[in-house]
Every structure is written in C-alpha cells, then in structure tokens.
C-alpha cells in the first residue's frame, strides 16, 4: 500500500524487490529522485501522471517483472497486507485516454478508495 501525493495506491508485493527510504539509507537518495534513479531502470512518475509535482523527499520502489525493471517514487509505503481478489474492482479500459493504463482496479480500505497499479503495464 503506497501513497503518492493525493493518490493512494497498491501494488502487488511480489514485484517489489527493493524499497529505498532516503531517511533510512546512507545513500541518501532524495527526490525528485524519479529522474535520478539508480541503474538503468525505467522511471515511472506517478506524480506527473496525476498532475502533481514530486516532493523533495520520496521513497523509491524497485519493481521487477518478467519483462523489465522500473523504479517508482512515492511519498511512503503505508503497509503490506493481504488483499483478496474479490476486494478489487477492475477499472474498465474505456476510462483511460489512449491505450496505455497504469491502473488496474480500485479497492476500499480503512482510508477510503485505493488504486491498484497494473503490474502488467509497469514491469
């Protein structure tokens, strides 16, 4: 469970290979770290997609899949928990402008609605 700006997201935990918190690591990675992400990972800027600006300090998530590796900057990692598939309502494709989509569905938790990132589009 992630937060980035005004948006609350979730991502499947098994694609998250590393979480870099600049406050907890000597590397001191800090934002807008999307552009300065280590390695050759493609950067996904959830802030700009939502029409926002990344804050000075972010947490970086490394996501790895069968196809590629990406880094995503977020405000914070909220928690890790089990989510039943039945809790997730898929968002229909016609909602999106163009053919690409980063959001797969929506679920409700204690804080309200949360968007599920589409790992198939990310990695």
């Amino acid at each position, binding site marked *: 469970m992630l937060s980035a700006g005004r948006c609350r997201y979730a991502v499947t935990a098994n694609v998250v290979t590393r979480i870099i918190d600049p406050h907890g690591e000597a590397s001191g990675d800090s934002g807008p770290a999307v552009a300065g992400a280590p390695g050759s990972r493609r950067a996904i800027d959830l802030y700009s997609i939502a029409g926002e600006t990344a804050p000075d300090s972010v947490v970086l998530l490394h996501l790895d899949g069968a196809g590629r590796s990406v880094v995503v900057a977020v405000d914070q990692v909220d928690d890790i928990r089990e989510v039943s598939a039945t809790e997730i*309502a*898929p968002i229909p494709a016609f*909602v999106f402008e163009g053919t690409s989509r980063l959001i*797969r569905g929506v679920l409700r938790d204690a804080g309200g*609605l949360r968007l599920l990132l589409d790992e198939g589009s990310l990695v």
Partner: protein
Amino acid sequence: MSVADIGPQLSFRIGAVVLSLPMGVVREVLALPDVVPVPGSRSQITGVALHRGLAVPVYDLRRFDPLWPEPPGPGCDAGPGEHLIVCVWGEAVIGVLGEDPNLLENARMRVGSGGGPAPVNQEYLAWVVESGAEGTTESIACLDPSRLFASLGVPLVEAASAQEVTGEDDPAGR
C-alpha cells in the same frame, strides 16, 4: 405545443441547465459516493466510485466541451453535482454527476415551442421539452444516450469481464 411520447425520463440539473436521460438507461440514483481520481483517465471523468463491487467511472458533463454551445459547460465554477446517476449502457456501468434528479412522467411533458437556443448542442439532443405547471415551466434538454455515451468513449459492447468482479484466479478478468 404537442404531447411528446418519449417515455419516462430522469431529469437532473447541471448548473442552470436541466438535462434528462431516458429511464431505460438509468439504473439508480445515489448520493455522491467517494470518488477517487484515476491518473491517465479521460478529461471528462472525475474518477471512479466503488459501488456494488463495480468500479463505476464518474463523468462530469461540465467538462465535456462538445456538449455545450459555449464551453466551458454551465456551473464550471461550482462544485460537482450532489448525486450520481448510475447508468447502464450495453454491459458498461457508468455514473453521471447531476443535481436535483427527478422522474419525469410523460403526462407532464409537452414538446416545447422551440423558442430560444438549445441548451446543449444539437448533436446530443433528442428532444427539448417543457415540464411543470403552466407559468412555471422549464425547458429540459433530453439527451440522446447513443450519441452522448459514444462520444464519452463508453462502448456499447463492453466485455463483461472487464468491469465485473471475477473470481480469485483473475481479478482483472484477463
């Protein structure tokens, strides 16, 4: 004026304009639920609501410039509508924001005399009718759902699995 046989309609207000949709496409009317913005979505979509296990795209027609003779749409400086009109189009379920939803029965409706400019562009207009007692009538723009929903990008035939919650194995229906 003449009596119009256009079937029951659900009227709603957007700013100062009163619109209607045929009851045949309206599933229910809700007090505005939680709506979460979806990055990358079409500009006229304010987000999605979660209702009865479905992700319901929420359309704000004020943002749909082609609908209005003079964009931006009416009441753009006001807040969103206080109700969500949940519509079924083909196998898609969508929500339209509006205020003051009312059921219009045929018996109360008369086809307007045509005076004054149409409140929405003709392309999306099925009828303009007048409703209410004599002396207090108001014009209602009855929308053509085929044209409107097509222009909003809502497919008439949407794979059922794309919006319905499915089983444990494949929640995205893929």
